């Protein structure tokens, strides 16, 4: 093969690898550097490297603001995840399996929540709570998180239900299964991976949500609101560094858990990586 042809063949691949590498560096490089510098023994986050220390971590663990914010976020995200899974599973079954009048309108409202910007939903929530005279707190944050998060669960779980043939459910009923048995032994195993993915997305949406927590929260701060406040006043940065690294690490582990879990589940049912990839993209389609 002449050299020019060989270059012509290799060039697209090189460009592809270069592009992918560039994106990975831009997406993860800053956070990796942040993690690295959380071990730097200096109050300012800059070169030169002053030596290895874990003192910012012990300071972060003893920082009331950081710890209570992380605690609040964990509690809110857990409640939101459970509530969203219940509401979302109910709605996805209703919207994909039961014909009723006004179904497309109800489905449209579920979709609308996902496209209205969080800033606007946050402000609407703030005005709403002030009108019904409900004091802003972790509870109001949780309520607003639920309403923006469960439609995401609907999107993910519906995508799973649409791909799964409803005649299997009819067959189970015809063969004498009760509604409950059909749900337990036919539907649940099929949508379990979607439910797992939806749970992780829901948790992350709530945990990472800044706009809505910012507007509908009171005195008790969630983690993103706490970081925002500290950054606005540029104080105590190394502690933010350490706390952020802990959170980022936990999130990396969670996503790897998701990956591993999906691999296991799809493999056990004879699926492939393609199925797992489809599960991720199914939510946005």
């Amino acid at each position, binding site marked *: 093969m002449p050299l020019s042809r060989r270059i012509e063949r290799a060039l697209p*691949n090189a*460009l*592809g690898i270069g*592009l*992918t590498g560039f*994106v*990975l560096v831009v*997406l993860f490089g*800053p956070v990796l550097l*942040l993690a690295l510098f959380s071990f730097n023994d200096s109050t300012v*986050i*800059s*070169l*030169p490297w002053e030596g290895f220390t874990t003192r910012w971590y012990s300071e972060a663990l003893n920082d009331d603001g950081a710890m209570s914010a992380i605690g609040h976020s964990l509690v809110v995200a857990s409640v939101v995840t459970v509530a969203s899974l219940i*509401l979302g599973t*109910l*709605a996805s079954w*209703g*919207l994909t399996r*039961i014909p009723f009048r006004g179904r497309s309108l109800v489905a449209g*409202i579920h979709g609308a*929540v996902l*496209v*209205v*910007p969080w*800033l*606007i*939903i946050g*402000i*609407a*929530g703030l*005005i*709403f709570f002030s009108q019904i005279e409900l004091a802003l707190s972790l509870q109001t944050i949780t309520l*607003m998180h*639920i*309403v923006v998060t*469960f439609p995401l669960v609907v999107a993910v779980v519906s995508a799973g239900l649409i791909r799964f043939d409803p005649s299997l459910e*009819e067959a189970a009923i*015809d063969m004498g299964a009760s509604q409950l048995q059909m749900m337990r032994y036919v539907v649940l195993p099929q949508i379990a991976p979607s439910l797992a993915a939806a749970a992780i997305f829901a948790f992350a949406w709530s945990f990472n949500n*800044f706009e809505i927590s910012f*507007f509908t929260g009171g005195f008790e701060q969630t*983690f*993103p609101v706490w*970081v*925002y406040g500290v*950054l*606005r006043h540029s104080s105590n940065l190394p502690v933010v560094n350490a706390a*952020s690294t802990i959170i*980022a690490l936990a*999130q*990396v582990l969670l*996503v790897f858990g*998701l*990956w591993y879990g999906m691999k296991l589940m799809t493999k056990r049912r004879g699926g492939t*990586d393609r199925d*797992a*990839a489809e599960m991720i*993209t199914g939510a*946005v*389609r």
Partner: protein
Amino acid sequence: MGIPTTPQITVTGERPSRLSRLLKPFAFMSLPTAVLAVLFLIPMGILVYFSFQYGDLTGQSGFTLSNFTDTLTDPLYREIALATFEIATIAMVAQLIVGIPLAYVLAYKAGRFELPLLLALVLADELNPMVRIYAWRMLLGREGLINDALTSLGLINAPIDALLFNKFSVIVVLSTSYLTYTVIPIYASMKAVDSGLFEAAKDMGAGWFTTFRRVLLPLIAPGIFIALLLVYVPLFTDFAAPSLVGGTSGIMLGNVVADMVLQNGNLNMGAAMSFLMLLAAALFSLLAYQLSRVKGGAK
């Protein structure tokens, strides 16, 4: 022998009664719909109502359009709206320039790296947005790592101030924050395209650009539409990134609305601004939807 058993099966399969046809949707849909009504529809309704009301300082209130006229005629807001448009558009175009080829690589070229790369994109989105913004600030600042590295290498004499607290830094942060939502819909629509079409186009003498423009682009138009809906619209309302890395020149509409509500406590003006943004978003979505249908239909 098979014939008599057939009616038996249809008999055991229960026919839904009228009552159960009414009760079943109610059982599944009442709770989710009630949550949406109380916590989404009613608050949005109140927001719209508030945008047409005036002052509550003296206790007086009533119908007015001044919130809208004040917002739309203020030259400062117009300037910020223009800056917001500029920032959001550059960030969106930058993401498409990187995102479309990346989606292509993922969909057709990545092979066994497809799933890990997809998960890397998901992970990038799951990372806390505040942590990400903070990481960029640490890199781009006057005493940030990039300036530090460049000065200690002797490449520059004085730190570059142009990296942080301006439009540039907001664009960098926003483009990297939303990239996942740009790439995944486009990737998903590419997965549905038969790659044999590219071979066919090549055989018929089309170059890569013609193939892209005439074959691939019309087919992935719906994916690009979803990407625009998921990314371009929220870009206009983002306020965490501009308020943390935007300085004074990188202020966006989100900051104006947030300040109006939280600093000035003027809920009516804030509501009117939010309503205007919502209208603009709805109009844009409709337009993008129409365009994607025209493109998609052209094949």
